Every structure is written in C-alpha cells, then in structure tokens.
C-alpha cells in the first residue's frame, strides 16, 4: 500500500494539466459556468470530446485493443481528479460507457467494427431507451415491443426520461420480444437509428425549467418503426443480462473527483459570501462544520472507489458494489447542492430563464449563484435515475449481503 506518486505520475499529471489548458477554452468555460443543468450545448460537447479523442484520452476505461489509453489505476485517478478540478464538461456516457462495454462483451465483430470507432470519435451521439412510463424501478415490466417480421423487427411503444434524445443519432433500447411468465426472460437489446420513420421525440421540462432545445430529458415514441435484424445485440430474449451488465457501468463511476470540485467551489463561495457584521460565511463554524463533515464523507467514498477500481483492469465491471458508489455518490452530491443553496441565501431566488441565451447579460447577484438553485432542483433526479437509491439498497442487501 502506497499513496505516493512516482516521477512518471507527476509527469503525466503535468501532461493532463497542459492538455486542459490548451483544449478547455474560455468560450467553453463561459458557457458551462452559466449552464443551469450542468450540460453544455451539443456543439461544445462534441468539440470537447473530439479533442480528448485526438489526444487518445476519450475512453479511459476502454481496453487498449479498442482504443483505450491503457492508464494505470494511478493515472486514471490523476486524470479524473485533474479533469474534475478544472470543471471540464462530462463526457456523454451513453455511447462511451454504456453501450460500448455491452458491444465489446456481447456484440458481433460486425457490430464492434461498425459502432465502436464512431463512439470513440464522437461521430455518433447515443441515447438510452430503458425506462417507460409504467416501468421505472421495475424495469423488467417494460412493454415497448419488437415483433419479428422476418428481415426486421417492428417496434411499437415508448421510452421515457431519455436524456438528450433530441441530439441523438442512435438509441439502444430494451424491447419486449416475447411474453413470458418471467418478465425478465422476454427482453431483447436493440440498436435503433433515431432517424427511422415513426420515431417522435417530445421534450419533458424538468424542475430547473431549462427550455427546449436545452431540455435534459424527453419521451421517445415508436410507431411501427422498422429495425433491421442485424441491430439485435446478443441473443433474442437475453437482453436482461446485457441490460444489467450495462447498469453496473452506469452506476459504477467514481464520484469523488467531481464531489471534491464541489467542495472547492463551496469553500470559495463561503469565502466570498458576506453574512453581515463584517464576517463571511467561512467564519461561521456551523456552516464550516457541515461542509467539512461532507468533505470527510467524500474522502470515505474516494477510498472506497480507489480500493474497488485498483482491483479492476480496463473494461472490467465493478459488480453489485457499484450500488455503493451510486448511492453514496448521489447522496453526497445532493448534500453539496443543498449546502450551496444555503450558502448563497437570498441569491437562490432569482430565476434564470435560459441556459445559454443570456450569457452576456449581467447576472443578478454574484455570477456563481445563478446556477445553484436550478442545480439543486435538478439534482434531485440523481437518487431517482439509474435505479432509485431505494433499489440500490435492495441490490446491496440481496446481492452483497445475501439477505
């Protein structure tokens, strides 16, 4: 056991810092700083991801044979920490860290060759077709059906909470291909072109009220959508296995680098926020104790993450322990958002209409305050999505503790 970096690690850290300095432009920073829901415009995301791609760093967790950089655990830690510290845009996960691992494990050679290079280069934008209005926590009860029509499937039904579907070229979908007693055993994993006839994307406006076209989620409707048979991943009716495999990637991220970034931001807010009587919020021990308590919990999570990830090699999944990361990561994120709202006091109140249109207007109150209340509201989703935290606790209880 050793926590220190060697010279090669320090050199790598400098390389990451240099890359960020040249690639994360001031225009990007300005846009993201004023984003209500933490997302940037599609153009920005694509531009940023392409610069990571050119550097060879777009997919830190991919095996080298598919284009991963072959980072060591330490390098990966350095990479994530530096990226989070700089506040760069998150890479959009649906292609890179959701459908790609499934294709690598269960896809045909043709599918790997067709899809993986475009995912790596951000030539194709993916979205996720999992939840339905009647199938949320109980995902296996999904009803969106794909009928076998010989050379193609005919898809009818709907998917909901589809993040950034308005930008997407492709959607990976869980569809029902057979009605069986056990709902899990009639599900298939299908790749669908979003330009297919019969697909309709409708925005769902969420609590932060980001207006169209900057909405975060959508409902996607399928009406007699023809999908070629070759777009089936793995075997028909075995989709549940692939779906669960994917979910462990969706949940098994490291959260601590971004959380530390949140702590840094909050500390700088506390330094700048006057609370009357000539004092600043940083002088208020009640607040600082809460902030530090949060920081300690983040450190506990960080070391859980490090222990888990250092035991894995690239492309490997975390297993049901991913539910620990998702539960603690999202709850700490929400705690930070809560503390941020507390910190800014009355400045939580002004409503910012649009994410990017008023980028040149002076803010009401301090610049940093604008996105805090909408982020707090929008952040409530994190304990609901990717399997609610109640479901995560069920998973840990069943799959880890054997209860």
């Amino acid at each position, binding site marked *: 056991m050793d926590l220190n970096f060697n010279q090669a690690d320090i050199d790598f850290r400098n390389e990451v810092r240099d890359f960020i300095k040249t690639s994360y432009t001031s225009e990007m920073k300005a846009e993201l700083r004023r984003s209500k829901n933490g997302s940037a415009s599609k153009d920005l995301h694509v531009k940023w991801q392409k610069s990571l791609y050119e550097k060879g760093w777009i997919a830190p967790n991919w095996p080298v044979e598919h284009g991963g950089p072959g980072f060591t655990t330490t390098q990966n830690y350095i990479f994530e920490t530096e990226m989070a510290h700089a506040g760069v845009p998150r890479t959009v996960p649906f292609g890179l860290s959701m459908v790609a691992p499934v294709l690598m494990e269960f896809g045909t050679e043709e599918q790997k060759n067709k899809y993986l290079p475009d995912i790596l280069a951000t030539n194709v934008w993916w979205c996720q077709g999992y*939840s339905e209005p*009647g*199938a*949320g*926590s*109980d995902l296996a*009860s999904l009803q969106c059906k794909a009928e076998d029509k010989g050379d193609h499937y005919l898809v009818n039904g709907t998917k*909901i*909470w589809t993040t950034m579907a308005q930008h997407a070229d492709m959607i990976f979908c869980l569809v029902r291909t057979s009605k069986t007693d056990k709902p899990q055993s009639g599900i298939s994993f299908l790749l669908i072109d979003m330009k297919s006839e019969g697909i309709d994307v409708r925005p*769902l*406006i*969420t*609590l932060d*009220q980001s207006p169209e076209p900057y909405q975060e*989620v959508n409902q996607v409707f399928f009406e007699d959508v023809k999908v070629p048979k070759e777009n089936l991943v793995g075997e028909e009716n075995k989709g549940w296995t692939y779906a669960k495999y994917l979910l462990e990637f969706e949940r098994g991220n490291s959260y601590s680098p971004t959380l530390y970034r949140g702590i840094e931001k909050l500390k700088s807010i506390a330094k700048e*926020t*006057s*609370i*009357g*009587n*000539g004092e600043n919020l940083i002088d*208020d021990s*009640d*607040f600082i104790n809460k902030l530090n308590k949060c920081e300690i919990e983040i450190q506990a999570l960080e070391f859980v993450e490090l222990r888990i990830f250092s035991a894995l090699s690239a492309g490997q999944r975390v297993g049901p322990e991913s539910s620990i990361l998702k539960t603690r990561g999202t709850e700490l994120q*929400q705690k930070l958002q*809560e503390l941020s*709202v*507390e910190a800014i*006091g*009355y*400045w*939580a*109140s*002004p*409503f910012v*209409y649009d994410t990017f249109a008023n980028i040149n207007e002076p803010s*009401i*109150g301090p610049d940093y305050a604008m996105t805090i*209340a*909408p982020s*707090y*509201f*929008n952040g*409530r*989703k994190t*304990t*609901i*999505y990717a399997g*609610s935290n*109640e479901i995560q*606790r069920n998973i840990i209880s069943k799959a880890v503790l054997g209860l």
Partner: protein
Amino acid sequence: MDFSFSEEQTLLRNTIQSFLQDNYDFDSRKAIIQSEDGMSKENWQQLAELGLLGVPFSEADGGLDFGPVETMIVAEEFGKGLVIEPYIQTVVTCGGFLRRASESQRQEHLSKIISGEEIWAFAHAEPQGRFNLSDIKVNASKNNDEYSLNGHKCVVSGAPWAQKLIVSARTSGDQSDKDGISLFIVDKSAEGVSLRDYKTVDGSMASEVTFENVKIDSSSIIGEEGKAYDLIELVVDETIAALCAEAIGAMSVLNDATVEYCKTRKQFGQPIGKFQVLQHRMVDMFMQYEQSVSMTYMVNLKLSEDELERRKAASGAKVQICNASKFIGQSAVQLHGGMGMTDELNVGHYFKRLAMIETQFGNADHHLKKYSSAS
C-alpha cells in the same frame, strides 16, 4: 387551553378555500405566472372584496380586526394553493409596519391596501447583510425636512408589482448597529428609484432596487428616527409566523399527493406504497408535518408575548419549518420518481416554494443561533 377554531375562523377558511377552488387550480396558476404581469390583478381585487386584505387591521382603520390566528389561516390556505399574489408582503409585513405607524400615515395608506388599490413591498435585505437584520448600508441623510436615500436593496419580494416600498435605511451609527436604523415609506415612482425586476424560482417576482439621491419628506418616516430595529424584528417575526403557516399548507398538499401516488403507482405487481421503506418515509413526512403544524400554532399564539419569548418562538418555529420543508419537499419528489422531476406535475412547484421559504428571513442555521442567543 383550547386549540379549536371558532365558527368565524372556520368560515374564513371556507371562504378562502372556495376562492381558491374557483380561481386557483394548477393550470390557472401557471397561466398567471406566464402572464405579462406575473400575478393576477383580478384575483387581488377579489381578495379585497372578500375582506382578506383587511384581516389584521383594526376596525377604526377599516379592517376586520383579526389576530395572528386568522392571518395563519389565510397563509396556510394560500400555501395549499401556492398563491403567487403578494399577500404576506403587502398585508402581513408592510401592513405590520403600517399598523404601528402614525394616525395620519394609517389614514393615508391603509385604506388603499385594504381596497386592493396598492401593493406594498418591504425592501430590507442587502447583499452584504444576508439574514442579519441590523446590517444596513443603505443610507438616509437628513437635510432640513428632507432625507436623501442612497444604496441597494436585494431580492425585494413582490417589488415589481408594488406602488409603495417600506425601506430600512441607516440614519446613524455603524453598518451593523441596531441603533440608527429608520423606516421610510417610499413611492416606487419617485425620482432616483430604479428597479431590475425578475422572476423567482418559485414562480413569484422580485427586484433589485437601487436608490440614488431619492428625496423623502420627513413625514414619511415610520416611528422615531433611528429606532426602527425593534419594530423590524417584531414585524419580521410576524412574517415568519405567516410563512410557517404558508409552509404547512404546502406540506399538507405534498404529503397527501405522495400518499395518494404511492397507493396508485404500481411496480413489481403492487402499489409502491406497500413497500416498507417507502411507508416509513411517508410516516416520517407525516410526523414532520404534524410537528410543523404544532410549531406554527405555537408561534402564532406567542406573537404577543414579551420580546424574548416571541423571538424564541419565531426562531424555534422557523428551525422546525426549515427542516421539515427540506425533508418533505425532497421526499415528495423522490417518492414520485421521475414524475416528481417534471414541471407539469405540481409536486416540484411545492418543493421549490418550500425551498425558498427556508431561505426567507433566515434559514435553519441562522434561527438556531438566534434561538440559542435568546435562551
């Protein structure tokens, strides 16, 4: 000791409930928020016609001569309806100051409030002062019979709709001295008053208000020069008592909606309300609500007690209401799942309003400190 409501009070509650039923369903409210004014002048007139704008004022001033319990009833019902119109700002806060103003000031202004002709807003908070009631930089310097007002008040709730402002300003002393603060009635259209109006995250409106050499006649001062702090604290405590009532109204809607949703939403072949982990969460929401109702009654019944007792009551109630608002608001969204995240469902709107009530006139940390210092 008696916690029952009188017939008259029940009648008052029924009147408001039927007004809200007729005028304030979720879609009507949405239309009001999206309208050019951002509030409904017709609704405001109707509130006047129902006598509600005169609730706390004496009969001599043209009001209904009711006390804190009646104000609590109004605010609670408005909380259930998520009413946008600035009742607390105009009637409870500014009305609270004017009730203690001079005979001539009461005569000049109260009838216009009671008739619905004028909306008022209290311009007090400043960027550097946060929740500290005595940290006032806005300055009023006296020259003969006139004051000249300069400075910036932030997030003045309801100001875009107001004709008149009550402004706290420093007439002497250092920035956070309790001594040396005065209250002025300021015409919003007076020369040198400028506003930047905006919507707020809970569907209301507020302004940044700047004063630049605004001339105010010395007859517009409320009470004695430099001695306004105690009155500000009293009226803010009364406002907190009303905000607590508004909050319990909102909480009750969220709790009912959540229980109802969990009874009907099916997953894994049964209503999700059958799952114990959700049952316990809803039981906790219910217990938080009951304690909040109780603390709201407590503070409203103690508003007329001596200063120290009243301050403790207001801060204690606000701590309870802040904590419960957070827990109930967040839990209601969580238990509604993805639907709770949507703008089209009312749940999120109640959650957001409760989050803003937490901040108004001081959050839980602030009031815990105030409570400790009063104990």
